[in-house]
């Protein structure tokens, strides 16, 4: 279908190495890739696969400890790797520009954003005249759909939201009309709704300006919305390159199949049947196929034979010698949920009208009546034994704050928390040992939640000693049991956290929580720091542990796909207030709360590619906090006065699902569109 034309940029046979602790480690091996005019090439792979390194090589940007052993980067007839710094300065930011991952650190905090873009224009001699520059800045800001460009240009980065900051970074990258835009995980730190808006912007910019892009991400769902072709990388090798649809419909490489199979999706009924086993061990890579140690289809020669990209069909290449004899991956329809723990009947945790605030009132604020608004307002939740309740919402919605209150880190301002039918003190120091044992917290980032100076044995022994008074051989056995429960063997005892991979560390953190034999696990975004294949493993581990031990979980996540795969019930929070609660199946079928609907539309799905139905950008209309519906300002279905002035009523939907909205349920059902776009096998619900 695609006639090979002159590519805009082409990487040929690139070998790349980093020097770490005195040794050269190869991070890219024989990578060839090209981007054609007007094309968006996606690069995907798990952490450490070399995708970002490859992206930066397109800018010929090398860190001081990097070395290029072989290969070329051809752009406009030049090999970028041969150019001097002064020559590169003529290219970078002018013809090839970069949108970095984290806009907060990419923008200089003490310079007004308009001026920062002005600098780019002046630096590259693109424009000189002050008034022309100002005009160009306005033009760029309107191009990236920033409101009130005049006023915004005078702001400092910290006065902008994350999404706005990323828009400024994109505007900066576009300043000199580049031919190629390199995007390194540009939406990773953003909320899902902001992410969908940024992606919609990029799609529109690409149509409007006709430039080509390299989009680097770990998120297949995002690529499914924007990429034309996708390159899959593994351990520094390009293992498969294919047009988007062919990659998702008929993936050839076993790694690609596993990767796609590992992605949790909001469309739960479809799933690639394959998952990934084991972990990438860089120091044990075979000379042949890098994926051989983890592959289900390996044969005797895979280990020895270096793999090269072979053509499967036009534009589809795979670096697997056995691709002819392996069936391509096919999404299968799942009829039942794979697991079912029936939650018990008895209530375990109940929050009744809980409001939370970070700083206590000072004398000043109480005298002058300027007390701050609570970050969580009048939330009532209940959780039964062995049930998983997911708390969903964007950053700042107060979901982690609620977990902190349950844990006893943040005493509630008002309201009651009950656990096991007895009141729970707000402060951890006033709780009984039994209560402390029964509620265990698992944090998002295992790097921070494990003491780097303690061995795994020491880490796991504390709860066992503290809560059960174990010692000697009993303790020894209990530690082994704890490790075994998260599928780690006893050789891990003597290791330290920095000797473990991210997934293993999170397992240890889970094992530490389980060692207390709790009744309730508070899981605060425990999957978001992990790669998808590791995520999939931990999800199945959690399910299994829950079935075995009858543990209830309060599962905090921004990821609706994970929630759909793990939770029994879901509570949706917006700006500290509950919007909807209900069974997971009911939440993913109409009627939807308007906010839930906005969230669902924003979730990128690999089974709903190039989704065009990005919700309209709604400006936040000032609503008096504590008055009316918290979501009114952003609601696409806002009714007007009633929403901003009056508290919305809770409407019961079915037996145990509640939606808090001024719209009647029939109206909400009528307006819902998300469930219609799930292609394939019928309607959910």
């Amino acid at each position, binding site marked *: 279908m695609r006639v090979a034309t002159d590519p805009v940029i082409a990487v040929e046979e690139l070998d790349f190495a980093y020097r770490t602790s*005195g040794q050269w480690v190869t991070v890219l091996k024989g990578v060839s890739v090209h981007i054609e005019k007007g094309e968006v090439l996606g690069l995907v792979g798990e952490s450490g696969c070399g995708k970002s390194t490859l992206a930066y090589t397109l800018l010929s940007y090398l860190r001081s400890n990097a070395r290029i052993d072989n290969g070329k980067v051809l752009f406009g007839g030049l090999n970028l790797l041969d150019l001097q710094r002064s020559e590169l300065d003529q290219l970078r930011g002018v013809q090839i520009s970069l949108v970095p991952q984290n806009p907060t650190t990419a923008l200089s905090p003490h310079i007004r954003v308009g001026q920062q873009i002005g600098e780019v224009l002046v630096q590259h001699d693109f424009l000189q005249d002050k008034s022309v520059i100002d005009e160009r800045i306005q033009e760029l800001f309107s191009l990236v759909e920033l409101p009130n460009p005049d006023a915004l240009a005078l702001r400092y980065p910290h006065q902008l939201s994350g999404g706005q900051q990323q828009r400024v970074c994109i505007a900066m990258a576009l300043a000199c009309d580049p031919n190629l835009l390199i995007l390194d995980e540009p939406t990773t730190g953003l909320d899902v709704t902001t992410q969908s808006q940024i992606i919609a912007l990029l799609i529109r910019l690409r149509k409007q300006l006709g430039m080509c892009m390299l989009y680097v991400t770990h998120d297949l769902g995002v690529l499914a919305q924007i990429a034309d072709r996708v390159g899959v990388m593994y351990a520094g090798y390009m293992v498969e390159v294919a047009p988007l649809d062919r990659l998702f419909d008929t993936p050839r490489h076993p790694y690609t199949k596993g990767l796609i199979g590992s992605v949790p999706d909001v469309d739960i009924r479809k799933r690639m049947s394959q998952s990934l086993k084991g972990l990438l061990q860089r120091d044990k890579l075979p000379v042949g196929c890098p994926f051989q140690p983890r592959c289900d289809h390996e044969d005797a020669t895979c280990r020895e034979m270096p793999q090269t990209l072979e053509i499967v069909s036009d534009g589809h290449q795979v670096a697997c010698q056995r691709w002819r004899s392996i069936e391509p991956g096919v999404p299968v329809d799942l009829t039942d949920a794979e697991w079912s723990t029936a939650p018990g009947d008895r209530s375990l945790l109940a929050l009744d009208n809980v409001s939370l605030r970070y700083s206590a009132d000072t004398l000043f604020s109480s005298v002058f009546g300027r007390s701050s608004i609570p970050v969580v307002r009048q939330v009532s939740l209940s959780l039964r034994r062995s049930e998983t309740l997911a708390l969903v919402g964007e950053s700042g919605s107060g979901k982690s704050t609620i977990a902190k209150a349950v844990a006893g880190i943040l005493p509630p301002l008002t309201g009651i928390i009950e656990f096991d039918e007895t009141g729970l003190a707000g402060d951890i120091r006033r709780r009984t040992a039994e209560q402390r044992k029964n509620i265990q917290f698992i944090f998002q980032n295992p790097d921070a939640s*494990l003491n*780097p*100076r303690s061995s795994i044995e020491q880490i796991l022994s504390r709860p066992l000693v503290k809560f059960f008074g174990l010692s000697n051989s009993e303790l020894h056995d209990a530690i082994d049991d704890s490790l075994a429960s998260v599928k780690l063997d006893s050789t891990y005892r003597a290791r330290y956290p920095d*000797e473990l991979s991210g997934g293993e560390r999170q397992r240890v953190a889970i094992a530490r929580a389980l060692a207390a034999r709790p009744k309730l696990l508070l899981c605060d975004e425990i999957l978001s720091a992990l790669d998808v294949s590791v995520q999939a493993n931990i999800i199945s581990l959690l399910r299994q542990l829950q079935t075995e031990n009858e543990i209830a979980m309060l599962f905090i996540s921004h990821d609706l796909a994970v929630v759909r795969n793990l939770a029994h019930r879901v509570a949706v929070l917006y700006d500290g207030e509950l919007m909807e609660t209900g069974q997971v199946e009911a939440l993913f079928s109409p009627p939807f709360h308007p906010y839930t609907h906005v969230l669902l539309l924003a979730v990128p799905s690999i089974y709903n590619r190039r989704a065009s139905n990005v919700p309209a950008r709604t400006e936040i209309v000032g609503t008096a906090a504590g008055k009316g519906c918290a979501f009114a300002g952003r609601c696409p279905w806002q009714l007007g006065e009633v929403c901003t002035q009056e508290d919305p009523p809770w409407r019961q939907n079915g037996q145990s699902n509640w939606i808090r909205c001024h719209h009647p349920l029939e109206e909400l059902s009528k307006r819902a569109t998300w469930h219609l776009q799930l292609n394939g096998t019928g309607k959910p619900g």
Partner: protein
Amino acid sequence: MNLTHWFQLWRRSPQSLRLGSIILVFWLLVAVFGALWTPYGYAQLGAGLPLSGVSWDHPFGIDQLGRDVFSRVLYGTHIVILLALAGTTLGVVIGALIGLVSAYIGGWLDEVVQRFAEAFISIPFLVLALLIIALAGPDLSGDPILIVMVVAFVYTPRITRMARAAALDVITRDFVTIAKLRGESAWSVVWRELLPNTTGTLLVEFSLRAGYAPALVGSLGFLGFGIKPPIPEWGLMISENRQLILAQPITVIGPGLALASLIVGLNMFTEGLARILGRTVKLGEQ
């Protein structure tokens, strides 16, 4: 850890560390064996003609009382080093303890401890040292234990602040929260979670302070508030011989050189060590 590994480590370590450790090893050997090898006793009168100059028999000359200065320097090495190290160690242990606990408990206790530490830091080293010696009274004057205490007391507030700053960084980490949620005692959190994660900083602090300690001990000796004669503490020797500086400068230059080279050696070593530790502190122990 085999020999080649150590060799590698040696080659990759900073220049200052290498040079410093050579000087330091030299002085440690002198401290251990010096007292056995002294050609004359440290208090032996009539080892040579008083005030005779440099000769093969008396490299640092002979003092007023006819004692061999070189023998006295060799003998005095272990005294200087022991006083300095003991004082620094005591200071670091107490300072770290106060700093970590103060940081963890926080609140008004932390506030009070820190203001006290600041008050003590604002008083110059020597003035503070002399103040303590004066308070201790004439009975204890010259007691080695007092000297150790003085060094420790002078250092404690500085270490306290350092330890507190390092601990504040650790306290916000999730594993400390987990320990609190488990109901661990303050002592357990300080001992298990905070201390192991601040040892790097504390070690750096220890080595830097240890580098200055001989100077402090020497200064006290010079002023006559240190070890009492005839024990050949270097600062005291410099002080005793300073009237001879015009007649036989070598009797002052000798112990002066010894003190200077020990301080320079210690500082180079500790500075190099601090750089290595600073680099690897984050990696945890292997």
